[in-house]
């Protein structure tokens, strides 16, 4: 595999769900950070919104969420970035194919995976470590809830890869089907605490919520981080 011809996204880049059904809802009007689209693995790449890049005037291709080795091989010529959802972070064949692709890999820690064990997923793609961004998406905390554990960010940081924080997973609606999920955990003010924590651990990228705007105060905090590069 030839050496990659791309670089990591600029510090501060935000990722948004770029599927047709979500795109219009997922770009905050006040966003002043670089932006990249991320496909939704649950609906598949066929649902990517084609007008996305023209609308925002960027030429960077979207980041493709992948779940099988076949998909990675098939899409390697058209995408420069692959996202491995947490549910697949232990699938050896997926990780190997992603490493072999030579593309930039965003590897999400599964919500079920102890932070100490992410190192073994990284080992499975060690040949591609230079092309790796680790994604923290929270830890399972009962059904349909995730918590951000600073110890996990510390563990990821020690692996010397850039880190992204998945606010969509941490605050999303995935778990609304659980009958006993309390409403208070959806307080948008928690966005601020999550972004503060991210900044404290030198997180470089954010994945924004799918179905609502990020709390403006949290977005402003992100913008004001001296390292965020304006688009």
């Amino acid at each position, binding site marked *: 595999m030839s050496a990659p011809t791309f670089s990591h996204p600029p510090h501060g880049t935000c990722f948004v769900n770029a599927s047709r059904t979500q795109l219009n809802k997922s770009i905050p009007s006040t966003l002043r950070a670089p932006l990249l689209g991320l496909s939704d693995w649950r609906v598949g790449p066929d649902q990517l919104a084609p007008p996305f890049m023209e609308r925002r005037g960027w030429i960077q291709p979207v980041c493709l969420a992948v779940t099988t080795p076949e998909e990675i091989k098939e899409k390697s010529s058209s995408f420069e970035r692959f996202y491995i959802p947490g549910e697949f972070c232990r*699938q*050896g064949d997926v990780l190997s194919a992603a490493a072999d692709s030579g593309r930039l890999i965003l590897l999400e820690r599964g919500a079920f995976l102890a932070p100490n064990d992410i190192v*073994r997923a990284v080992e499975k793609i060690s040949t591609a470590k230079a092309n790796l961004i680790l994604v923290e998406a929270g830890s399972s905390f009962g059904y349909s809830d995730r918590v951000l554990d600073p110890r996990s960010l510390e563990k990821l940081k020690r692996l010397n890869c850039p880190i992204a924080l998945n606010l969509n997973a941490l605050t999303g609606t995935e778990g609304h089907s659980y009958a006993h999920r309390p409403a208070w955990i959806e307080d948008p003010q928690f966005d601020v605490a999550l972004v503060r924590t991210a900044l404290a651990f030198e997180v470089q990228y954010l994945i924004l919520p799918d179905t609502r705007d990020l709390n403006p105060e949290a977005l402003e905090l992100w913008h004001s981080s001296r390292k965020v590069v304006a688009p």
Partner: protein
Amino acid sequence: MTFKHGWNGSVHPALALTPRALTIISGPCMFESRETGFEVAEKMKSLCSELGYNYVFKSSYDKANRTSGNTARGPGMEKGLSWLSEVRNSLNIPVLTDVHTPEQALEAGEVVDIVQVPAFLCDQKALLKACAKSGKTIQIKKGQHASPEQLIACADFIASEGNPKVLLCERGSAYGYNNLVVDYRNLVLMRRSGYATVFDGTHAAQLPGAGSGQSSGLRDMIPSLCAAAVAVGIDALFMEVHPNPEKALSDASTQLDFATAEKILRRIRQLHT
């Protein structure tokens, strides 16, 4: 008896799930060798027959999501499916194996009676769709991170793809790092949903990643976990059995030897209603 969407519980010409007889899904975690598979299948078939249980043989041809990348994965698809087919035809029993991609679901579905969706992948719609298309019975394991409602929604998705033959399998929920607990309320909710309900006593006893690069587990808890599940009410019990668990190439700390498996099966006879 019919399950949700009118499915009659038939998984094989010789077996239909029914409340009259508990079904035991059992075999070695990994299909390590043809001999190991046959040894377990013959022993468990005989034991289940003696005790009045239905029997399904289970084994994996590829452990694709091992904790560490340096451990054995199994014989591979071609050899594994060929062995599963041999077990099925020689012993006239249904067989189950797990699949990790849509392509595997269709290929394995040509051979096995039940395709199993692993817990981590329970919400992957492309995989569920392919499993539905296989036309075979599908066992979905509840993700350690997933609520029972999420699992039932996955089953509804499969049914909406035209295949109502779904088993819901409880295998424990993440409870802090490197630890699982069984929430027996889930068995009630799953059964109430109308889908056939399975309890996996082996993986419910696991301590994921707790063994320095491999999963460890609490084998001594399995008999109690299984007994409680049967008492609450299930349609099938899943447990992995190996002739020599200590030497097993995967999940060595939670596979059962024949003697313990037999003790469990004898104990739960009084509990199944």
